């Protein structure tokens, strides 16, 4: 009962945030002074057909609120309008580019999760020792390597010097694509490892000092079982929360990595569309990234009591 109400409340918050975000994405165009037709057709020949086309697409002859309603109704049906640079529907263009970015983000996410969890756990178990300090310093340095720096260094070393990995394109077929995305996913992951690593470390350090761990250890439960069942399990909450925050950052940072490695994904599409003044595509991608962020965080929020029952108990007690 209370669970249902909680989930409904979260869903309401999610819809409200998405609605407000869509207002921001749509009405941002109105911040540009002057004729909207001229803004949308910047850098293109304002032929009568083009003007008629763009006016019809955005309903520019309607009042702003009706324009929004038209646009959002289209978006809800998967119609983001037509791309000005490709002369195709934005949805088609996005669909072609989605697989590369999805795979890139999933591979980078896996690297972040493994490196962050293992690094943070080793640091926590060796708190105060040289290993701990070494890991913390490495994390801080890794966290200062922006993805464009990671990209060029990886290309220089592993692609140009050693010739182990390709430096351009996404290949064809699943395994070839995975192979092509090894360097890009590492470049994308580097800067985010520090977040997961530090959260894991501090959450585990906190748990390790708690009485239930001491009790379990004194009862003769093996070290490994204590860490897995009592320390790691209890540390999952904060780790998941920080992972949710990473999602949008990963998608956006992938624009830099995709550009550096010449990958035809959503990120490089965003950069190209900003560069080539293709506003319908920019709007669609911004809205997608924001939706991904809000939805993933809402899911984590909703799932939290199942992952970490203490948070539900705490909420009930309050």
């Amino acid at each position, binding site marked *: 009962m209370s669970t249902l109400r909680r989930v409904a409340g979260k869903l309401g*918050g999610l819809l*409200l*945030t998405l609605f*407000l*975000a869509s207002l*921001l*994405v749509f009405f*941002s*165009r109105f*911040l*540009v002074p002057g004729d909207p037709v001229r803004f949308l057709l910047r850098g293109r020949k304002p032929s009568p057909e083009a003007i008629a086309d763009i006016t019809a697409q955005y309903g520019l002859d309607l009042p702003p609120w009706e324009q929004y309603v038209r646009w959002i109704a289209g978006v809800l049906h998967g119609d983001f309008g037509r791309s000005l640079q490709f002369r195709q529907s934005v949805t088609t263009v996005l669909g072609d580019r989605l697989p590369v970015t999805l795979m890139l983000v999933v591979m980078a996410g896996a690297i972040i999760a493994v490196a962050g969890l293992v690094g943070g756990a080793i640091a926590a178990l060796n708190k105060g020792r040289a290993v701990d300090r070494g890991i913390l310093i490495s994390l*801080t*340095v890794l*966290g*200062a*390597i*922006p*993805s*464009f*720096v990671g990209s*060029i*260094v990886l*290309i*220089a070393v592993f692609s*140009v010097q050693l010739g182990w990995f390709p*430096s351009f394109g996404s290949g064809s077929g699943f395994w070839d694509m995975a192979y092509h995305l090894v360097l890009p996913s590492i470049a994308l992951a580097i*800067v985010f490892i520090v*977040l997961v690593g*530090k*959260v894991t470390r501090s959450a585990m350090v906190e748990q390790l000092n708690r009485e239930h761990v001491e009790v379990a250890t004194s009862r003769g439960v093996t070290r490994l079982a204590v860490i897995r069942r009592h320390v790691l399990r209890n540390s999952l909450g904060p780790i998941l929360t*920080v992972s949710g925050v990473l999602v*949008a*950052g990963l998608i*956006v*940072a992938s*624009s*830099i990595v995709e*550009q*550096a490695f010449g990958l035809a994904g959503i990120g490089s599409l*965003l*950069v190209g*569309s*900003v*560069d080539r*003044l293709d*506003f319908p595509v*920019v709007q669609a991608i*911004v809205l997608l*990234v*924001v939706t991904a*962020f*809000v939805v993933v965080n809402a899911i984590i929020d909703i799932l939290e009591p199942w992952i970490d029952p203490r948070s539900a108990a705490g909420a009930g007690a309050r």
Partner: protein
Amino acid sequence: MTVPTPTLAVRVLRMPKRLRGRGIVFASLAVLAVVTLAAILAPWVAPYDPDAVDFTAFYAPPSPAHWLGTDSLGRDLLSRIVWGGRTALLGPLLVVTFSTALGILLGLVAGWRGGWIDAVLGRVFDVLFAFPSLLIAMMAVALFGKGLVAPVIAMSISYAPFVARLTRSLVAAERTRPYVAAYRVQGFGGAWIALRRVLPNIAPIVGAQSTLNFGYVLAELAGLSFLGLGVQPPTADWGAMINEAQGGIAAGQFLPAIAPAVVVVLVVVAVNIVGEDLSDRIGGEIPA
């Protein structure tokens, strides 16, 4: 009863003593000082004109004449890095200044007034948090054109909620403290207490957060220039330099790209170390 406050000069002179045993922090401050001074004094310290093309020295290797060598157009890399610090550091400085000012203002209002203002601002922050700052910056470029102006304004707005939420939580906690009640009883106005008594108390923690923000903003603005959407070539800027030097990497010419990249990483590491040290010494925990 006046307690003599040490002058700035005395405090600076005392710095090394306090920093003893903090080698890394001291080194970081030194890196930041050198980079900042080089950028400010660029016309006097740069050995060459950063835009001077030398057709006889494409990709010259490091030598006494060109300490870091030259790029694909024979321009001196060291001079370009020195000059490039101007845009690369000015952008983040502006963003941090604006976002801190805006964030403190909104956070003070939300935390001090509470109620519906707090609720509305909280919802606005939630929406803004869903827009990663690099995304907002790219959208601003799509709307207003390339360069540094639109991204700086956009990112100032995008970073303000982080400062505001921190300020809000600190102010809300501070508001219930006895000293605030004491001032109220004496008849001081709410705005006066908030600005003259509460704000100075929370400023150090907010300052530490803003220092850390400086590093993130620097990396993001450099990334934007790397994408060709920020500072435009041929202007010397760290991100734009790496963008221009990308073509040379396949030909084995690494230095024109790696040199500015190393400087970016050094500065971001230094800023992070200083920022973390600040927050450690203040003892306030900065919510991630």
